[in-house]
């Protein structure tokens, strides 16, 4: 099994003149889950975006397997799935077409979804909406489609932004089961959440973020 370590060291992020967060440090290795908690606007999403390399850090660094993610040699995206709070789905495609598209771009698996789509659509119980356009779906179903990506990826690092929002109880339990499976298979999960579900996990870490400091 491939070992993966994520190290965030003194991360500081500014947007304009506003300090979003500063001096955030943590490390995470295989089989661990990190919950990022805090009030609205405290920088959870920004931290998650900087983990994916989308957000520039003012100070500090993020290393995966001791290689800085800004280093072009660090192919961390080959091993990282990011699902943001907007669902990364094309409104004008059906559920099936969307997942097919995302599957083609996911080089970690070899057309796993396309070979057996019904198996993956059943997990979150969305197979009946298979040929619906995403724009016709409810918010919860959109979230389920977005999360279905996790079922057919072989990537080890999952970076999720509020995965539990909009989901019903059954789907929440399914998702937590999926997380447990992933953790026991040696994966890593970074997730921001408002709902504490750490009691399901043996090795969980917390990151409590404070509020934003606005320079007036």
């Amino acid at each position: 099994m491939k070992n993966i370590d994520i190290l965030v060291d003194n991360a500081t992020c500014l947007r304009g003149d506003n300090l979003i967060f500063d001096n955030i440090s943590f490390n995470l290795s295989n089989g661990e889950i990190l919950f990022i908690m805090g009030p609205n606007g405290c920088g959870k999403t920004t931290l998650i975006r900087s983990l994916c390399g989308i957000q520039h850090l003012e100070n500090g660094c993020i290393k995966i397997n001791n290689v800085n993610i800004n280093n072009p040699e660090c192919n961390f995206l080959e091993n990282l799935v990011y699902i943001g709070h907007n669902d990364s789905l094309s409104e004008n495609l059906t559920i099936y077409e969307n997942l097919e598209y995302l599957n083609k771009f996911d080089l970690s698996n070899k057309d796993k979804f396309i070979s057996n789509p019904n198996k993956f659509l059943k997990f979150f119980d969305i197979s009946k909406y298979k040929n619906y356009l995403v724009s016709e779906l409810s918010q919860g179903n959109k979230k389920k489609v977005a999360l279905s990506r996790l079922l057919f990826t072989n990537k080890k690092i999952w970076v999720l932004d509020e995965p539990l929002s909009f989901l019903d109880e059954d789907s929440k339990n399914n998702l937590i089961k999926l997380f447990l499976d992933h953790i026991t298979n040696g994966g890593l999960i970074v997730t921001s959440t408002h709902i504490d579900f750490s009691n399901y996990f043996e090795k969980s870490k917390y990151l409590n973020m404070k509020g934003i400091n606005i320079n007036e």
Partner: protein
Amino acid sequence: MNSIIFKKEIYTYFRNLNYIFLPLIFFFLVISIFPLVIGPNKSLIAKIIPGIIWITIIFTSLLSSSNFFKDDYNNGISKCI
């Protein structure tokens, strides 16, 4: 992978007809208004109309070129893959 991108763009365009018709309407509007503005000068119109058509084509493609990336950016696909 190229074929799947192509397929996605084609579906996006044909399920969203305003992507196709808005530039077309713009194109014909510009072309038809030009002679009205210039006046009934046949030889002048005959001289400049090919240039006007080409310039309008360029502007029209500029108008619709933002659609290529705007959707992918807005719904976050460009961030997640």
